[in-house]
């Protein structure tokens, strides 16, 4: 279980963290995770993370939303209980479509936004009653934590991280069952 040993390097400044990430990446170490108190612009690129696919899901959810709105309004206003509103008793979805556009728009946004947020939470492995993965509560305040897996190279890794400006370096056994 050597792989479950990780090193935690703690930084107090996001600019220092950024340059540290670049140094560590240049030395070809794999960064498992970084915990920050706020989103650090450009960090994902520096870490070499793949671009998010959240936008694609948002588009698909929007398509679901507009379809639901169309089917719903067609059922309510055309099939189930047709009404003559504003002298437009055409009972055709297409001809009355302008009246339904606001609903179609709103449901598109509603579906895209809510489902995207839920997807984001699930993809980030956050759900109700989930125990926090955060290894150090200070990262919710003003500290930044970089987690790197150790493969019999504690010494060199520690020295490298010291040089990048880490204020604290801990080697911990990671409990794989935590998440």
């Amino acid at each position: 279980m050597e792989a479950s040993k990780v090193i935690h390097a703690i930084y107090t400044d996001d600019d220092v963290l950024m340059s540290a990430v670049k140094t560590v990446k240049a030395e070809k170490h794999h960064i498992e995770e970084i915990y920050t108190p706020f989103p650090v612009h450009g960090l994902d690129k520096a870490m070499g993370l793949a671009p998010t696919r959240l936008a694609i899901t948002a588009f698909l959810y929007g398509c679901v939303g507009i379809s639901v709105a169309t089917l719903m309004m067609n059922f309510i206003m055309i099939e189930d209980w047709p009404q003559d509103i504003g002298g437009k008793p055409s009972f055709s979805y297409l001809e009355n479509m302008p009246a339904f556009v606001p609903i179609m728009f709103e449901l598109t946004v509603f579906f895209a936004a809510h489902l995207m947020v839920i997807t984001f939470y699930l993809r980030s492995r956050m759900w109700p009653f989930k125990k926090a993965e955060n290894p150090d509560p200070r990262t919710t305040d003003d500290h930044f934590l970089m987690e790197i897996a150790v493969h019999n190279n504690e010494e060199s890794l520690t020295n490298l991280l010291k040089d990048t400006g880490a204020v604290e370096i801990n080697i911990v056994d990671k409990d794989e069952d935590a998440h």
Partner: protein
Amino acid sequence: MEYKISNRLRIAAIVLMVLGALGIAYGFIDSHSVNEGNITEYLANEAHHGGDHATDAHGDEQADTHGDTHADEAHVQDGHEVEAEGHELTHEEHVLHQLHNRPYAALYVAAFFFFMISLGVLAFYAIQYAAQAGWSPVLFRVMEGITSYVLPGGLLVLVIAFVADSHIFIWMDENVVAHDTIIQNKEGWLNKTWFFIRASIFLAGWSVYRHFSRKFSVAQDNADINDNSYFKKNFRIAAAFLVFYIYTESMMSWDWIMSVDPHWFSTLFGWYVFASMFVSGITVIALISIYLKSKGLLTFVNDSHIHDLAKFMFGISIFWTYLWFSQFMLIWYANIPEEVTYFVTRIEDYNLPFFGMVALNFLFPLLLLMNSDYKRIPWFVVMAGIVILFGHYLDIFNMIMPATVGDRWFIGVPEIGSILFFGGLFMLIVFTSLGKYPLLAKGNPFIKESEHFHY
């Protein structure tokens, strides 16, 4: 980075203007080849050739749709047909008016289109200053170049309005007003003197802001590194200008565009025209920046700047659609005859340009520019930009033409000639102005941030 308008570009612009002028002249001569003497013959020929509109009286369709009682209301939209009912204007005379209006209207649409591009850019530029935007100062000289067309372009629009007179603005015709109570009630606002006084105030205000913002922007380049006083001045006048602009732009849109249909009004028309000019202006900033960058002149403009401009093109296209639809849906749903006739005319006589414009201004930008990566590909942005500009030309076309030429519209020699002429003039003035000062506003306190802008 210095830039001088190249001879090739200048010659190209002049050639466009000459070709355009020929087209415009042909339009006037051609329209006057039909006169009182041969109009009957003309209409007979047209009917012979299977022209289906010549034989039916206009407005019949509207009359069918809304019942006869509303026919009068409907007519005012359809060419200047307010006279047609009961004022002894025959069908022949009416068609003759429409034929004679066409070259004026074609000229006016193109003149206004290129003018509104530069006015839209002026508003965008002022917003950048008022917001103290950090991303855009590398584009300021491009914007200043485009806004150099505000004054000449605006004057030309007014000259055309003055010369065209009742060919475009039916309320300038005293005979029509004498028989029209609705226009009579609006005479306090809609009269020729007050129209041109207002127009001069608008244009003077915009030009004064343009003059000083350019002056301070250039002065800031030569100022001491610790002296931001010119920038601060620009910040202040930008804020003041924006207040002036949003009122005057709105009034300008009632005067210069909405009053061609003097019976009809829409309360969000000012915003609607604003959206059109804003998105066209931003598109032209993107196109000219990409052009200059391809010449190797805007090395400090990176693809993040293009990305941001494309985001604006995308966003304001949707904003335009939102306003277009808001205006359309309320009137469509309420179905009040004097309001809905505006859209009935457009849907029946202008079906292709009316709905085509929605496709060009909404669907194309939505689909072409939705993907984040595509907003960074110059040729993609250029393609979307050309579609957007054509779409917004059609938008202005749909605003002016139904009231002036009725169903006798076509995008033919007079229209294309006018586009070429004003397009050439626009290029000539804008690129000459671009060559006057370095392309980087190096004194702007945000210039470093802007150069390093990345997303």
